């Protein structure tokens, strides 16, 4: 019993976990829903396609909700992510690859081959007429799917995290903002012949809201348009620094933002897949700050051009804007950002690409009262916190040194604190004095960690 054979590779590759038999009917409903969706997309008969689509959405929603209840509703409440790294769907197995390919394919079709979705779009016409007083288009289809995903899988998250009022509150918050401000209100504005405006997206994420062209258009739209411009400027340059000072970037990324909303609901099962290595962190800073710089430069150049001070700037801003819109706006935030959920985790875009996250992160790191406190010397270096971090922060490097976690990337989802089995971590807003002070219980380790 006491001899020590060298551990075999079986440790690194544990046997895959089978799907519990009780969950199979729910999964079958999801699969049938996907089939019905394909059928609807392939059916030129509008009435039949509409029926297929309704059936598909009912099966997908019902199946997902049933699955969530079977997986979380029946067992004792608590953090029990059993078999997370043993299931094909959540450990980059065949199911994860298939899901990733399907999601990526959907985005490619949506952006560049929307005519393939024509039957689905037509099937949604009544809903679009009801909400927006106009025919559906590919973006209405996308918004519908997106909002449904946030709501249905939001209910899954509410069940899963029902033991934590913090998680209940932030999940309910992203569901509310996606449904109200990401779907209903923009549709209603269109119905009222007003500009389609998302009050929860700001420059530099929704970069064109502060482009001179958009601003001029809105200002022509009367009082509401003027308010929209005012709102955009205030949110970007006043509210964002103030709210981030008091609460950290989480007020936006984990409570309001639609991208964050999808990540916290549909992406919740994939949060552990984010890469925690130093190499990944190096890519993060190489990408996200240049992207923030690029969109800032582009916006400045556009205003310079619009002011007429420098003539013929369109030669530069035209191609630059197209490049940014294609590479960052479409490929990165959509195709990679969501398509790669099952392989690289739910926050690929937020971590590597989002200029708003970069802006909020700089504020959080240098001008905020937010930190994740480490509780004295209680850390056992188990790694559950790092594993739970969707932003790829190696949280335990700080916890095991007794240091508070003050990182630009942290979106404040709070899962590290939930996953900690020793009660070591807590998200807190407090005085900035001593914000970076470490614990007096640990002082062994002053060696570099990044």
């Amino acid at each position, binding site marked *: 019993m006491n001899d020590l054979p060298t*551990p075999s590779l079986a440790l690194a590759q544990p046997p895959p976990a089978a799907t519990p038999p009780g969950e199979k009917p729910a999964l079958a409903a999801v699969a049938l829903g996907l089939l019905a969706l394909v059928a609807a997309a392939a059916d030129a008969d509008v009435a039949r396609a509409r029926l297929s689509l309704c059936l598909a959405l009912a099966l997908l929603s019902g199946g997902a909700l049933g699955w969530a209840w079977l997986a979380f509703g029946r067992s004792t409440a608590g953090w*029990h992510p059993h078999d997370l790294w043993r299931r094909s769907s959540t450990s980059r197995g065949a199911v994860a690859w298939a899901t990733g390919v399907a999601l990526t394919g959907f985005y490619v079709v949506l952006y560049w081959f929307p005519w393939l979705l024509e039957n689905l779009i037509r099937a949604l016409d009544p809903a679009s007429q009801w909400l927006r007083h106009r025919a559906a288009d590919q973006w209405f289809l996308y918004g519908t799917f997106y909002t449904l995903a946030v709501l249905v899988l939001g209910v899954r998250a509410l069940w899963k995290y029902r033991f934590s009022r*913090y998680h209940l509150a932030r999940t309910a918050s992203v569901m509310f903002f996606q449904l109200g401000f990401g779907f209903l209100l923009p549709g209603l504005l269109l119905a009222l012949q007003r500009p389609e405006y998302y009050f929860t997206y700001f420059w530099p994420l929704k970069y064109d809201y502060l482009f001179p062209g958009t601003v001029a258009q809105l200002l022509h739209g009367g009082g509401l348009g003027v308010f929209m411009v005012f709102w955009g400027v205030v949110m970007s340059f006043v509210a964002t620094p103030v709210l981030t000072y008091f609460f950290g970037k989480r007020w936006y990324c984990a409570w309001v933002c639609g991208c964050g909303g999808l990540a916290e609901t549909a992406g919740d099962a994939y949060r552990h897949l984010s890469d925690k290595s130093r190499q990944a962190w190096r890519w993060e800073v190489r990408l996200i700050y240049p992207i923030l710089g690029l969109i800032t430069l582009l916006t400045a150049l556009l205003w310079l051009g619009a002011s007429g001070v420098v003539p013929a700037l369109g030669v530069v801003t035209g191609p630059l804007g197209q490049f940014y819109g294609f590479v960052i706006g479409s490929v990165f935030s959509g195709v990679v950002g969501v398509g790669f959920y099952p392989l690289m985790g739910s926050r690929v875009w937020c971590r590597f690409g989002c200029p708003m996250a970069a802006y909020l992160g700089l504020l959080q790191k240098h001008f905020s009262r937010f930190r994740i406190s480490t509780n004295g010397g*209680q850390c056992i270096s*188990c790694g*559950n916190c790092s594993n739970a971090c969707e932003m790829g922060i190696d949280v335990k490097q700080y916890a095991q040194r007794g240091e508070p976690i003050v990182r630009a990337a942290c979106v404040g989802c*709070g899962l590290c604190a939930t996953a900690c089995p020793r009660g070591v971590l*807590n998200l*807190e807003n407090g*005085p900035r004095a001593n914000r970076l002070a470490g614990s007096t219980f640990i002082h062994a380790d002053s060696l570099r960690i990044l």
Partner: protein
Amino acid sequence: MHLVIIGNGITGVTAAITARRLAPDARITLVAAESAHHYSRPALMYLYLGHLRYADVKPYEDWFWVENRLELVHAEATSVDTAARTVQLATGSALTYDYLLLATGSVVRTAGWPGQQLRGVQGFYGLPDLESMSQATQGIRHAVVVGGGLIGVELAEMLHSRGIRVTWLVREPRYWQSVLPPEESALVAAHIRSYGIDFRVATELREVLGDAQGRVRAVVTTTGQELPAEWVGLATGVQPNLALARAAGLETDLGILVNELLATSAPGVYAAGDCAQHRQPAPSEVAVEQLWYTGRMQGETVAHTICGQPTPYRRGQWFNSAKFFALEYQTYGRVPAQLAADTASFCWQHPTRQHLLRINFRRADHVVTGVNALGLRQRQPVWERWLGEQTSIGGVLAQLAAANFDAEFSRQHEPAIRREFARQFPDIAVPTPRRKGLFGAW
């Protein structure tokens, strides 16, 4: 200076990292048979549960050792020549040292039950144990866990996660009787039973029965009952790993005997962590400490001594933590299982949910002596200060929210706790309370 450390657990690694900081030019070699790199022993259960992969339980990425010039030798040390200052490795090569630190940890302790050598019967301490448990529990339906401590509850949770029916035998009349007061034991036992664990107190293992192939098939308890068991986990404690110390001719008892500088009987040889036994432990402290935290503190202390800053080992306020399935436990100061006559104990429990807070204080001057928290998180620096400054129970209860480390939006129980205190101790006044949060903490 060449420091050779035997063992890459938390003690050895903390010593190596501390020594690197104190002696930037020293040559530091970590020798370990169990694994190529340091891993978190308390995290082993999360590998079995599927929460983490092996790479996730390594506290440092592999580049850390290279960049900090900490040499790793993945081999068993078989003997030490303390006169020639050399360590012999099983690979045939030898290492010469100026200082040697033995941080060899523990081995599983068993009671020598009949049949414990059968296949499918094992302890749970290291990677090889996890390995054999993973293989032996595949597809089984019944398992038995023996021993009412922290490893027992880990094994029960691990087996439960794979849908294996667990019968858990505990010798004492209640859970973790040597450490927890009765209310805590009862709450933890109720929590464990809520997961469907067949938790049997006052029941001991008498014998393990095998089948024709030498595999375990059942156990017999001291109550004479035969229980089916395709796997048996022995969680009846660990004892210092003395193999190398004995081979080196060091003075040993239960552990490797050390003085307050953690020096052994041989010059230049130190011992720290699970394997060390203090010759003169401080009053109310134990001679052999087998905790992650004490291992880290001893490793840090001994590195100072080795690097020319002789530092006696002083553990400071006692603290510990654990998790029983979903129920978290933290303790600061002293909360003995048996209450001393000069100490009063205030215990609050939530009427319906699983939260408990116990604060002990001296009857004479009301100074707090320790706290137990179940299902509540308490802030260590605050309790450290209260205990160190001899704060009275009234002062602590008034400021109790300052020690609240629960997540935001959690229900706050401080008013209910104060009401309960006023009911139990109507003669002791509690000043006006302060609000929760960081403002009160620092």
